[in-house]
């Protein structure tokens, strides 16, 4: 399970952490530690993949809770990011361009983007996040528009 899903988790964490590899690797490790702890409670109602996605999303949100409560400028940081936000990439490679564009989204939208790019269905995303499919559709529409704007520097 660890070997098979490592890349999937790391990439979702990379998208979430604006392409910062060290942070993403730490998060990925935390995810798999939680997976290991919860293995005995894993019921096969959901696929292992969906289950791991849930743990990944929750681990990222928990990281955010700790990080934001430290720097005190929390609420505004959870909103859509400023177009001038710095990202640790020169934007030459396509994936780096994508991480840089994702960095302009709110953290939750980054996670949704990662799930969409991974090919997860809207129904599954709704179950992972615990929101309605309609809400997921609205989010995806908004994200696509924003990404387009950012990538084309509109």
């Amino acid at each position, binding site marked *: 399970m660890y070997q098979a899903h490592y890349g999937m988790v790391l990439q979702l964490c990379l998208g979430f952490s604006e392409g910062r590899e060290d942070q993403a690797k730490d998060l990925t490790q935390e995810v798999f530690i939680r997976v290991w702890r919860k293995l005995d409670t894993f019921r096969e109602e959901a696929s292992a993949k969906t289950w791991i996605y849930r743990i990944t999303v929750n681990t990222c949100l928990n990281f955010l809770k700790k990080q934001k409560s430290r720097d005190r400028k929390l*609420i505004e940081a959870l909103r859509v990011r400023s177009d001038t936000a710095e990202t640790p990439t020169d934007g030459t490679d396509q994936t780096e361009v994508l991480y840089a564009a994702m960095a302009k989204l709110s953290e939750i939208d980054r996670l949704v983007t990662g799930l969409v790019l991974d090919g997860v269905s809207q129904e599954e995303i709704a179950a992972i996040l615990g929101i309605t499919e309609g809400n997921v559709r609205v989010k995806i529409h908004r994200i696509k528009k924003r990404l387009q704007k950012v990538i084309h520097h509109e």
Partner: protein
Amino acid sequence: MNEFESLKAGWIDARTGMTPSLSATQLIERAQRTNRDSLRFQRGTLLILVVSFLMMGYLLLFYFGFRETLSHLGVGVMLGFFLLRIILEAYSIQKGRAKDYDTSATDTLDQERNYLKLRLRIHGFFTYLTLGMYTLGFLLLLPEFSRYISSFWMAAMVTSYFVPGIVLTLIIRRNVQKELRELRVVVALSENLAE
């Protein structure tokens, strides 16, 4: 947006070659170590509280040997509220361990919000209540103490109680503010998720 489809393809391609730096065995060892450390820390906190309670119980009940009703009331208030604080801490630790990370993000955030509200009640209201009642209990002991020790030592004893008490209150206040900030983040995340 066809461009989005090409981003999707690039995203999947970028995954090739991503391999874990730790083997599964190393990861399990790390998880076991983290579990052990966290358990040791939680047990350590409770152990410190219980040992302090026992030492305080010994001093107040046996060593000083208070005779007056007012002092007995003071001892009862001090020990009773200290015990209540220990029970609440144990309850909070147990609740913290029961948190799930494999439910939906909304459920996990709700769970986290309830847990933080509980921590805030324990670390805020109940801790201040404990400190207040503990101080009241301490003040109730003073009349009997004053019969046996000089004014100088009485003043020294009262000062040595209140100075650390103020420092402790400031530390508690800082922790409460930290938990309050965490709660605000969780609330903001829930709102962001529902938008």
